């Protein structure tokens, strides 16, 4: 908001540049997606690309690069807790290590059993 008209004019170029970069990155993810890489590689590549795109959007479109301190602090706190929430699955998977399946042996194809449509 504090940016003056001159500065804003300069930004316009950046915005379109970022747009281009985002398009390219999207194309890359899709291309990688069609490659059907082994799952861990796919995850790494997709996440790296998504993070890059996220940084571009956050940094340029949302002006986080050079944003005021108070906002950055609030977001840092949020990001910390965000990762905490994301860690939940890891925690649970670790818990599962001491447990076994409920039926012995586990029913075949644990996921979808013939399920009559739900009304």
């Amino acid at each position: 908001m504090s940016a003056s008209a001159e500065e804003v004019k300069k930004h316009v170029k950046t915005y379109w540049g970022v747009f281009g970069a985002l398009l390219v990155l999207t194309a890359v993810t899709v291309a990688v997606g069609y490659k059907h890489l082994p799952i861990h590689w796919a995850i790494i590549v997709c996440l790296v690309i998504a993070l890059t795109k996220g940084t571009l959007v956050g940094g340029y479109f949302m002006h986080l690069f050079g944003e005021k301190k108070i906002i950055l602090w609030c977001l840092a706190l949020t990001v910390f807790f965000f990762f905490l929430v994301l860690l939940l699955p890891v925690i649970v998977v670790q818990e599962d290590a001491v447990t076994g399946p409920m039926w012995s042996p586990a029913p075949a194809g644990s996921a979808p059993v013939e399920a009559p449509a739900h009304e």
Partner: protein
Amino acid sequence: MDELIPYIYKPHPVTGITNGKFGTWLFLASEVMLFGALFSAYIMLRVGSESWPHGYQELHVAWAALNTVVLIFSSVTIVMAWVSLKLNKFTNFRIYMGLTLLCSLAFLAVKSVEYMDKFHHQHYPWTSNFFGIYFTLTGLHAIHIIGGIVVNAYLMGPGAKLWKTNPEQFTGRIECAGLYWHFVDLVWIFLFPTIYLL
């Protein structure tokens, strides 16, 4: 006490921001936690399940990629809408905002086609947790899009009157609407690979 609530359109001298912008960011922080929890649920269900299909086996990557492009473009247009106001070009603002709205409607249209196609193939939320997650996450995202459409339409239509009386405040509002819209875009940027590609 010349005014009841200061810093509505003038930034606070110490924090350097207006109330509205600060509030918007805090709201987005809570949204981050909301989607964080949902992504977390997704990871946990997927890791815990024995047969989770790859997104590309069940879903249409092309449509989703198209939607990604549409959303990214709308992000540029809304930021350009704000730029136009900064440069005092109200007509350009109208154009860019209109483009943003068109993009969001296009996004929803593609989304509905996609949903219809899923239903057509007997894929419902209760079919499996893969589709459960797919419908829940994309559905919630779509609700966010709809929310954005309402806000943006208001700001382009009746809300734009404020431009005449208090351009600074109006520009601030557009910036906030933009922040929200970029956030919705951001969520999609993560949803797209996690659901469709992996």
